[in-house]
């Protein structure tokens, strides 16, 4: 992975304040194209994308989505084709379907960031209402909305002001050790050996 890619990952933020400036069609297409490269269970590609960039439809979408704080200039609704999923032997609520939604969503967020667009995922919406508003067949279940737009300066503060957790805070190397406690206790030795140690 190049340093550029790592920098994109580090600097991406959820954007909840967006201007009304439209998102050009070619940028939307680039984001959609990027999503087709996201890892996908069995390469089955059970996700479908609905793009909304019409102001009146976006307004209705926002009314039906309590988690949508931003006024996006465009939105991509990631849907799971649950009928096809069942044909493959997945349960409609299989966790694998949600993982694929997540990988597609994250890929879109990073692609948007690379294009200097703001973006934010929304899952707090009524699936029934959004499905009806967008004329989705019952086979397509809307799972996540990716809001897109140009960042505004009036960005609200993050959801929480907790300290950002380091990778050491959330990682156990090799095997879970309940006594390792908090930050850094599971850090891998700097020499790369597989032995365990606790940080001071």
């Amino acid at each position: 992975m190049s340093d550029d890619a790592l920098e994109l990952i580090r600097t991406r933020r959820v954007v909840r304040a967006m201007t009304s400036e439209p998102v050009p069609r070619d940028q939307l297409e680039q984001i959609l194209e990027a999503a087709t490269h996201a890892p996908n269970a069995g390469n089955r590609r059970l996700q479908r994308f609905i793009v909304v960039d019409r102001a009146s439809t976006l307004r209705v979408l926002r009314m039906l989505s309590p988690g949508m704080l931003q006024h996006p200039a465009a939105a991509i609704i990631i849907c799971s084709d649950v009928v096809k999923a069942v044909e493959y032997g997945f349960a409609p609520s299989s966790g694998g379907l949600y993982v694929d939604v997540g990988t597609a969503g994250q890929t879109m967020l990073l692609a948007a960031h690379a294009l200097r667009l703001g973006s934010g995922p929304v899952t707090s919406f009524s699936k029934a209402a959004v499905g009806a508003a967008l004329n989705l067949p019952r086979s397509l279940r809307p799972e996540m909305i990716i809001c897109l737009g140009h960042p505004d300066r009036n960005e609200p503060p993050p959801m929480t002001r907790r300290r950002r957790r380091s990778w050491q805070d959330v990682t156990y190397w090799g095997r879970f050790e309940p006594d390792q406690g908090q930050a850094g206790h599971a850090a891998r030795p700097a020499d790369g050996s597989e032995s365990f140690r606790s940080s001071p």
Partner: protein
Amino acid sequence: MQVMVLTEEEGLELLAYLVTAARTQLDEAAEYGPLRLLTAAQRLGTFMAPRSSQATRALIEDSIQPMPETATRSADPDGYVAALDAVCRGLAEHLVGVFDVDRGDP
């Protein structure tokens, strides 16, 4: 006092938000409940402010609207409760003035 009626579009926007929030709350963290209610209050306030008295507009703009849309209890439990209590107190003091509560019943 001016009779305030939301436009149909404004009313629908709030109605849709409240109904869909009732549904999403079944799936999301319980601490999002207050957050959703406060967002609804802020949206109502946005509709009300241009048609409100100066005092009510001040309450909306100085007390209701500045509440962060993304604040949740878990980030700062005591601070969150204290901030909400402060808003509630300010709201109550405003209501006392608007409804002439200190005058008492005749």
